[in-house]
């Protein structure tokens, strides 16, 4: 670290301490500083996500690598939020309305998010399954010599056999989302869960906005958005009726990037018809679906021997399928691990903060 840097941060620390010492009940100033910084970081991080989604093909919106970035962003925001909640803040100073309502509401949302994490984990398993079935289909398509012209009969038999099995596999792959036995509790619904998480998500007004109300609102919004995006991308139990409207006031500056992302994703969601949404908006599964569909059409209408360009096109599509599967193979497991980490962080924060508030005698016994 350069000397100037370390000096700068040292001075920062000094000035913060001074604030805390001098203004004993001027914590209000400190709160505002914390809040502004937090909001800025949120805006910056989501802005990154927004720009990466349009510029970089590798991080296309709702691709696996984009989702991994999204989860990372969430973890950063959560860590900052937790610091605001517990550090340098005397628990007994937390205002009563915050404690009675806002904090429990926030952790209620966190609990719901935990279920969403589990549902998404299951969903990722089924995506992996889809990937594996597709890989089988690809093998069937790749290894069948087509159009070598030598002995039409034999070649045709090979090809027709190959395409039949590939078609069957692919249909099986796409159809599996319909018949998948869902792993969440009976009657659990991802879309209802997201809806429930969005209730009472109301920006604090004027007088309320001091103390904890604003950071809690910011973090709640981030939580709901990230969970919503994950549910939109990854197939999980019962996503019919997923809300596409985000109850965040447009004029909030820090929320702009998030709102922009949400609009983009909502557009994608609306484009897909109901029955086609089962596989989720995950960029890779979309690609598998599209290519698979095209190959099925090709196979169904294929007359032996095919035209060369068509055959070349097919070969390219098969290659693209294989490439996509490879990306999935590399990215899905890390994503699953990140979701699990997210789960842990949320549990840990919730436990720690609730204990802290309990000990200072603030929470009533009726809190869940």
């Amino acid at each position, binding site marked *: 670290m350069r000397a100037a840097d370390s000096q700068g941060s040292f001075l920062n620390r000094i000035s913060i301490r001074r604030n805390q010492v001098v203004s004993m009940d001027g914590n209000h100033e400190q709160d505002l500083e914390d809040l502004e910084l937090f909001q800025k970081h949120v805006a910056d991080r989501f802005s990154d996500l927004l720009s990466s989604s349009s510029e970089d093909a590798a991080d296309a919106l709702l691709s696996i690598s984009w989702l991994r970035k999204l989860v990372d962003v969430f973890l950063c925001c959560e860590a900052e939020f937790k610091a605001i909640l517990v550090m340098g803040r005397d628990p007994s100073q937390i205002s009563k309305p915050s404690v009675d309502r806002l904090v429990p509401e926030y952790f209620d949302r966190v609990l719901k998010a935990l279920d969403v994490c589990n549902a998404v984990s299951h969903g990722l*398993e089924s995506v992996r399954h889809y990937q594996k079935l597709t890989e089988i289909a690809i093998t069937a398509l790749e290894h*069948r010599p087509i159009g070598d012209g030598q002995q039409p009969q034999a070649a045709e038999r*090979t090809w027709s056999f190959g395409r039949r099995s590939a078609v069957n596999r692919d249909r099986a792959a796409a159809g599996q989302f319909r018949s998948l036995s869902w792993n969440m509790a*009976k009657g*659990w619904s991802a879309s209802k869960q997201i809806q429930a998480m969005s209730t009472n998500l109301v920006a604090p007004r004027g007088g309320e906005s001091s103390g904890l109300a604003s950071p809690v609102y910011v973090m709640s919004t981030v939580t709901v958005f990230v969970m919503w995006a994950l549910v939109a991308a990854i197939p999980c139990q019962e996503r019919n009726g997923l809300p596409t409207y985000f109850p965040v006031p447009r004029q909030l500056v820090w929320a702009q990037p998030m709102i922009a992302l949400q609009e983009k994703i909502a557009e994608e969601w609306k484009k897909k018809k109901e029955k086609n949404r089962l596989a989720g908006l995950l960029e890779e599964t979309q690609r598998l679906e599209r290519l698979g569909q095209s190959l099925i059409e090709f196979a169904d209408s294929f007359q032996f021997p095919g035209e060369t360009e068509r055959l070349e096109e097919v070969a390219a599509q098969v290659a693209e399928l294989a490439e996509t599967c490879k990306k999935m193979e590399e990215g899905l497991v890390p994503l699953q691990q990140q979701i699990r980490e997210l789960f842990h962080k949320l549990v840990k924060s919730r436990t720690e903060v609730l204990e802290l508030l*309990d000990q200072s005698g603030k929470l009533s016994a009726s809190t869940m």
Partner: protein
Amino acid sequence: MEPPEDSRLPLDAAEKIILRWDSTASEEARERMIFESDRQEVDRYLQAVDEIQRSLSSTTLSGDESQSANKVNSTIQIAMARLEDEFRNILLSHTSPIEADSLTTTSAEPGSSTHSPAASPSTELDDLVDDHFGEEDHPDNSGRSSYRSTSSIREVDLVPFDAILDLRSIADRMISAGYLRECIQVYGSVRKSAVDASFRRLGVEKLSIGDIQRLEWEQLEVKIRRWIRAAKVSVRVLFASEKKLCEQIFEGVGTAVDDACFMETVKGPAIQLFNFAEAISISRRSPEKLFKILDLHDALMDLIPDIDVVFESKSSESIRIQAAEILSRLAEAARGTLSEFENAVLREPSKVPVPGGTIHPLTRYVMNYISLISDYKQTLNELIVSKPSAGSRYSGDPTTPDMEFAELEEKTPLALHLIWVIVILQFNLEGKSKHYKDTSLAHLFMMNNVHYIVQKVKGSSELREMIGDDYLKKLTGKLRQAATNYQRATWVSVLYCLRDEGLHVSGSFSSGVSKSALRERFKSFNAMFEEVHRTQATWLVPDTQLREELRISISEKLIPAYRSFLGRFRIHIESGKHPENYIKYSVEDLEIAVLDFFEGYPVSLHLRRRSQ
């Protein structure tokens, strides 16, 4: 294994056999299954496959792309598709969930199950289900040790041996032809639904975290108990048996294929199983949850060695990790719950004084709770490692008692916590005692409650051993102090009436007793005693022995004092007018009246008075 040259099938004969069984080409091929036909048919088919395989590898090696090479290629595809169907069919026809009462399989030869005891399979499963289910029937105390019993993995033969041989022969060929993925897929999908069905039988439920938070704790306790039973059978029997099946079919065939199949089959169910325990570990801390959480913790801890064995491969690492995470969360939950309990005791806010100064429900609850804690001390001693966060002597915080742990250095952290709980219980009780308007009653209340604490500690050898005799002595001292305080508060003023001073008058004409003062004394005594008697008869000392001791202690002071007073001064009263207005009670009357004290019933003294 290469058969000798002359018994090998010629290539076109092999092809014919394969094509005959092409289910896309012939109705008959669709309707019958090779492996359900006679053995010869099976052997012929497998031989045919082998022959095609052999010629495929040789044409590949030679780079031959001629017509025959193509033909071989397509034939192998047909054969693989067929084999896949056969594989699925064999699996399906031997798949049923584990039965509690009887096994569906089992022509298992003794040598085939290397891990399970040689007893016949059906009784084996009965025994083992009984073992697992029966453990729960013990009442809490003796059943405690069952959660820490040694583990035992018992694998069960899920599929008969000859079916396994068939499956193996198919898998072998599919995998060497490069159809590994297909094989794993088929296997996984059939076995997974078998595991799901077994889960349903075991009562493993799919509950979301939200569901679990919403349930009443009593309902959850039932589910936890059921889960513990189900988890043991799941890990030790169900998953272990699935693993064995994978090994039987796939071991040695390709690298780690058996692991892949095993994971394909059980990963989802295993995660679903552990999600329940995880959800419990996340729930809000509340004192009544402690003991079931400890049960869950102990059961899981018991299972971890088995989990580590069953899920030992690299690909199942995430399951092992999750189990370990849940265990540590349960430990955290236990610690947090104990903290929560201590908090709750300290801040229990009820202000309504218990009528009659008897034992407060809080005292009963706390002492029962810590008795139960001492039952769980084996686990808790491992989990509780830090001292209680007592108020420091210098904190000046009036809402928390002080406690120095210096003199209690050899005690385990758990023991310190228990002592701390008793300290804060007393502290809370003292606060409650101040709500009594009558200070005597306040002291009696403390006496009753501290006595109860002492009795409870003495009554449990584990508790006594942890609390220690030193602290017990302190408590007993407090008890005596409370009794003394009571006596002073009530009886000093009563006995004051019976004092000598002020009664004697020395004057010029007669040195004697002031009759008017004496009359006043008797009147005061009577009034006071009546009042005390009337009031304190309704007070309650529930413990018989304590009640007796207190009454005796009162009598020891009261009776001699009254007797002596009467003896010295009755003459003066009896020589005057209406002595009965002043000497209302005999010594015996008082003795009998004392017996009314602390019974908890209202009585009237007048009924007791012996006729003069």
